[in-house]
C-alpha cells in the first residue's frame, strides 16, 4: 500500500516505499466512462446519463502508473542500474530438442505455401472508401509498395 502525499511531507510508507508527491497541473475528476460505452448503441439502448458509470480518479491513476513503472523498472532497469528482479538460478542443462522431421511437407505443398506467402507480401493496399481524403500514414495500414523499375 502506498500513500498519496498531498501535503508534501516526506517519509516512508509502512511497507518501506518512499512517499511520493503527486503533482497534477489541473485537478480533474479522472477517467469517466458511462455504462453505454461498454457496448454499441444497438445493445445499450438506455439513457446512460441517469445510470451509474465507471470513474477512475487521478490519484488512482497515479497509483496505477506508479505500480506499473515499478514493475517496469524491476523487469527492465535503467541503463547502468542493476536489476533488482529475482529469478530462478537453479542450475540445469537443457534437453536437446529433436530435429524437425524432414520430408513432412511435399515440395508441391511447399511451393503452394511459398506462393501464398509471396502473395501476402506483395499485397498492396486497396483504396478504402471509408477513409476518403485521409492522409496516408495516419493509420496502421501498411505502406503501399512503390515500383521504381524503369520501363
Amino acid at each position: 500500500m502506498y500513500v498519496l502525499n498531498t501535503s508534501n511531507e516526506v517519509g516512508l510508507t509502512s511497507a518501506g516505499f518512499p512517499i511520493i508527491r503527486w503533482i497534477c497541473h489541473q485537478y480533474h475528476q479522472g477517467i469517466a466512462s458511462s455504462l453505454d460505452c461498454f457496448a454499441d448503441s444497438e445493445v445499450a439502448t438506455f439513457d446512460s446519463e441517469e445510470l451509474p458509470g465507471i470513474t477512475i480518479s487521478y490519484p488512482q491513476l497515479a497509483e496505477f502508473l506508479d505500480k506499473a513503472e515499478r514493475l517496469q523498472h524491476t523487469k527492465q532497469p535503467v541503463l547502468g542500474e542493476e536489476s533488482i528482479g529475482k529469478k530462478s538460478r537453479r542450475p540445469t542443462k537443457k534437453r536437446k530438442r529433436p530435429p524437425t522431421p524432414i520430408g513432412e511437407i511435399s515440395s508441391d505443398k511447399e511451393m503452394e505455401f511459398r506462393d501464398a506467402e509471396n502473395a501476402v507480401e506483395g499485397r498492396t493496399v486497396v483504396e478504402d472508401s471509408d477513409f476518403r481524403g485521409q492522409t496516408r500514414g495516419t493509420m496502421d495500414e501498411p505502406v503501399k509498395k512503390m515500383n521504381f523499375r524503369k520501363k
Partner: protein
Amino acid sequence: MSEETKAQLQHIKDGNDEAASFAERISSVRSGSIQLRDRPYIQRQPDTQFQHDEAEYPGVVFEVACSQNTRDLRRAACTYIQYSNANIKAAAVGFELGYGTKKEARVSMWKPRYLKDDEEGLDTLDVEAVIDRDVRLEHV
C-alpha cells in the same frame, strides 16, 4: 485499472435495476486479439478489454504503452475506434510510462466524435481526446 473497473462494474451489478442487468453481461476479456479489418488485415491486442456478451466488439479497451509517444497513442486510438466503426467507443486509454527518478507519465483517453461535414450527409468518424495530460510522479 482493470481490477478497479471490474470492481466498479461489480458494484453496479449488485443493484437491481437496468444498469445492473446490463453490467451483468459485461465481461473482462483480458488481452485477446481484436480483428479490426480483413483487407488490409488489421488486428490489435489491448491489455484489457470489456465486452458485452451481445456486442461484436469490446466497448472499452485499455492499452499500456511503455515507450510510445502521444502521436502513437492517437494512432492506436484511431485504429481501435475508426476500424471498429466506433463499436469500440470508450476508447483506448494509453499510459506512456516514464523512467528514471523524475518520472513523467501520460494518461490519455479517446472517444469517437462524429463530424457532420460531408456533402452526402454522412457523418465523418473522428476521434477526440477526452483526457490527454501528464501525470507527474516524483520520488522524494
